[in-house]
């Protein structure tokens, strides 16, 4: 495959990915964002506009969470994991 052909394939794949993201992003910031994050439910237009480029870029992650109806995930680190394990042992 020539370099031009390879470059065309890369650019085409990126264009398709971004086009899907740009189609998804307005729907998500309008309806979806409040479903996955309660703190966004009554957020204003400025907030929705400012997250739009990121939504277009990371749309598969957000689409999956929106479809699954998930809330923001819990943060994990050594202390939180140890505390959760301890709480689990106590309740068992």
């Amino acid at each position, binding site marked *: 495959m020539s370099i031009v052909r390879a*470059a065309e394939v890369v650019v085409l794949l990126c264009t398709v990915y971004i086009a899907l993201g740009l189609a998804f992003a307005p729907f998500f910031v309008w309806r979806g964002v409040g479903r*996955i994050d309660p703190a966004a439910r*009554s957020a204003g237009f400025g*907030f929705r506009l*400012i997250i739009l480029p*990121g939504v277009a870029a990371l749309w598969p992650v957000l689409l999956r969470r929106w479809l699954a109806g998930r809330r923001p995930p819990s943060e994990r*680190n050594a202390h*939180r994991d140890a505390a959760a394990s*301890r709480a689990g042992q106590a309740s068992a």
Partner: protein
Amino acid sequence: MSAEYQAVLWNRNKKLYDLTIAAGVVVFLGLFVGIGVATRTQATIETLLIRGFGAGALLLLHVVLAIGPLCRLDPRFLPLLYNRRHLGVCTFLLALAHGGFSILQFHGLGVLNPLVSVLASNGNYDSLSQFPFQALGLLALVILFLLAATSHDFWLANLTAPVWKSLHMVVYVAYGLILAHVALGSLQAPERPTALAVLLGIGFAGIASLHLVAGWRERAPAPDAAAGHSAVDVCAVSDIPLDRARIFLLADERVAVFRYRAEGGERIAAVSNVCQHQNGPLGEGRVVDGCITCPWHGYQYRPEDGCSPPPFTETIPTFSVRVERDRVLVDPRPNPPGTHAEPARLGTASGAGEPS
């Protein structure tokens, strides 16, 4: 904090910060183009602007990367950290202007799609010295976009701080790509500007040295926390400055042990050192109005239960503490985030170490 998202939580300091960035960028570009017009008579204004935007982005990226270690070494740099995300977004905008104008000027008039042209116009992917530097710049621009686009707190909450931080550590990959982009661009230019190579070397050495020194200084002491110990002797009461903390490594993560003023005397409480917002180092902050205050962005937690004051909802793990014979003993088993752990009471005299 987490009550409800806004586009930007503006306050006087942020406005001042952003005005300073904007003024600095305008002055830098003015000087760069002005000096260029005066000294490089053959260069067009478009070329000078492209180089000015690129140089500005590179300079700002050095500032962004230097702020973290500088704050570790000297808390007087903390005000720079407060709004660093806006500095990062500005870096991306300058890089976008540089990349956009470059693509328009050098790739916009051919028969190929301009982005295909950027990737394919120089096919020397198997050569080190002739490697297509523009492709490296394009990849760095994509990374900077991703970082700027995910800089809002919404992304912190929805990716979680550890994932968000890992994503934003990719800035170092972008930095490496940009260094290679500039170095190869200079190497392949007819005039081979040596001054630029020297400046790049100084910049890289400065950033690398700052990170190494800050990393060395940041090592937290690990007290003797053998398995089975219900409490670990971490330090003397007087080792902890009033309304501040000392940091220790317990349960594979840093713990911040605070001594602070409270009604009826002083108290000692221990919490996980990791702020839920951007994983800032809580132990480097202070107790303000009865709350542990993160030095990075001012997120607050009550020392006794690790909860942010209402209406905010962040919580961090707490640790049980007690004081015996002026020594601070910390149970190394973290309590679940937001769990009340009775602080050790010290009485009224500053530094007094009465048993709790």
